[in-house]
């Protein structure tokens, strides 16, 4: 992990890179985020706690240079992502970006005057879903499962590992990776290990991606990250109707919070999902609970 962190530091403009203090391998391995805000020194998030580096203030031009370097001088390839506020870079890391949106009608055409960049260092924790995968892949096959957690609790990491385990077990898994978080594709190659039997369609709205993969890839399991729109719910129904098993994630604090949200209530009531896995993180400890959907609906 320390090596991965050093690779990310190498993207920083020279002046900022030099301001990063020497850190031991153990600390480096725990760096989760590198935050750069114009006019302020660089800050690191190490194991959920912020740590400001006593260095020079970040210049706006340095943020722009960082975006160019991170995209390998290929802004056109990440522009669509940037308009959604982030971009995936080599290694699967994510650069969150804030600045001034340049609008064209209703849609964001680009971001200018970049004022903040947050680099989230990607980590793949292989084996973190080993026990859960046993619950999901029962004797009757893969159970349609919705993973629920608040942001930062690790639902994407967990889903990624489940995909890898199922794929290594010989199932054909298709991933509708709209925002590139699961596979972190970079120039046609998945930066995260999703197993040998996994096909990834990235950069395409989930609902459309599910239809494309159902048509062309003959999947046994379809996995999507973060269901947010009614079209996603319909795509899940479509997949289930075709006899394909479904894995997905959703943002919610817990099962009650999930049921309070109209879109997820509809999703649960469609009967697509058989079980809900609820993740929570307290004091650095992650807990995993599995609930049957029929219990939640009662």
């Amino acid at each position, binding site marked *: 992990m320390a090596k991965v962190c050093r690779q990310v530091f190498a993207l920083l403009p020279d002046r900022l890179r030099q301001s990063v203090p020497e850190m031991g391998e153990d600390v480096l391995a725990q760096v989760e985020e590198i935050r750069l805000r114009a006019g302020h020194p660089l800050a690191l998030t190490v194991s959920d706690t912020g740590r400001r580096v006593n260095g020079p203030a970040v210049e706006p031009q340095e943020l722009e*240079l960082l975006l160019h370097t991170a995209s*390998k*001088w290929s*802004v*056109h*390839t990440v522009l669509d992502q940037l308009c959604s506020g982030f971009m995936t870079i080599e290694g699967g890391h994510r650069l969150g970006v804030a600045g001034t949106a340049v609008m064209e009608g209703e849609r964001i055409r680009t971001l200018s005057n970049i004022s903040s960049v947050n680099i989230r260092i990607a980590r793949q924790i292989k084996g973190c879903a080993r026990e859960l995968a046993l619950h999901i892949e029962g004797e009757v096959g893969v159970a349609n499962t919705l993973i629920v957690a608040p942001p930062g609790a690790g639902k994407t990491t967990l889903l990624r590992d489940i995909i890898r385990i199922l794929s290594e077990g010989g199932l054909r898994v298709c991933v509708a990776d709209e925002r590139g978080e699961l596979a972190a594709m970079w120039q046609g190659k998945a930066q995260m290990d999703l197993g040998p039997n996994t096909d990834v369609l990235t950069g395409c709205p989930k609902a459309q991606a599910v239809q494309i993969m159902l048509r062309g890839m003959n999947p046994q399991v379809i996995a999507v990250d973060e269901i947010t729109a009614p079209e996603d719910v319909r795509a899940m129904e479509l997949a289930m109707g075709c006899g394909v098993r479904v894995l997905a994630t959703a943002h919610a604090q817990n099962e009650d919070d999930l049921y309070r949200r109209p879109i997820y209530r509809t999703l649960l009531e469609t009967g697509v999902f058989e079980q809900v896995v609820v993740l929570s993180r307290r004091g650095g400890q992650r807990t995993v609970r599995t609930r049957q959907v029929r219990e939640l609906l009662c």
Partner: protein
Amino acid sequence: MLKLFGLLLVAGGCTFWGFRAADELSARVRIVQELAQAVQVMERELSLFRPSLPVLLERMAQGRDKRVSDLLMRCCAEIEKGKNFTEIWEKQVEHLDIDEREKGLVRGLGQVLGQYDDRGQVQAAMGIRQELEACAARRREDNRTKGRMYRMLGVTAGGFLILTLV
């Protein structure tokens, strides 16, 4: 015998100079043409596939004259090392054997490539390619007239020196 050998050397040297000057002219035409073709590949690739800049440069280099493909591949390697593309491009273009106006056109690509959306890049590239093609046409015309003149000059100078020395 020695005198004859010397005369032949002088005549050969002059002719060689004339032919070499003419060859240099056609080599410059070829470079400008090749650059225009590379830019055309860039337009096509960006319009359809939107590849990243290193991949785009590699595709532009495929099947091109060695001087042009070397330039593109060197830029590609430097980007992979995390260097500033605009600076690398400007440095590499300086080594091209073309005139200042043509260098200015090619340098302009470095201000655009990878820094705007694909449409913006294609538009800029189209303008640069058209100007490069116009430069290549002018150079071809120059090559046709001046190339013949240089060759003739070389042969004539050789003959003149032989006559003078004999």
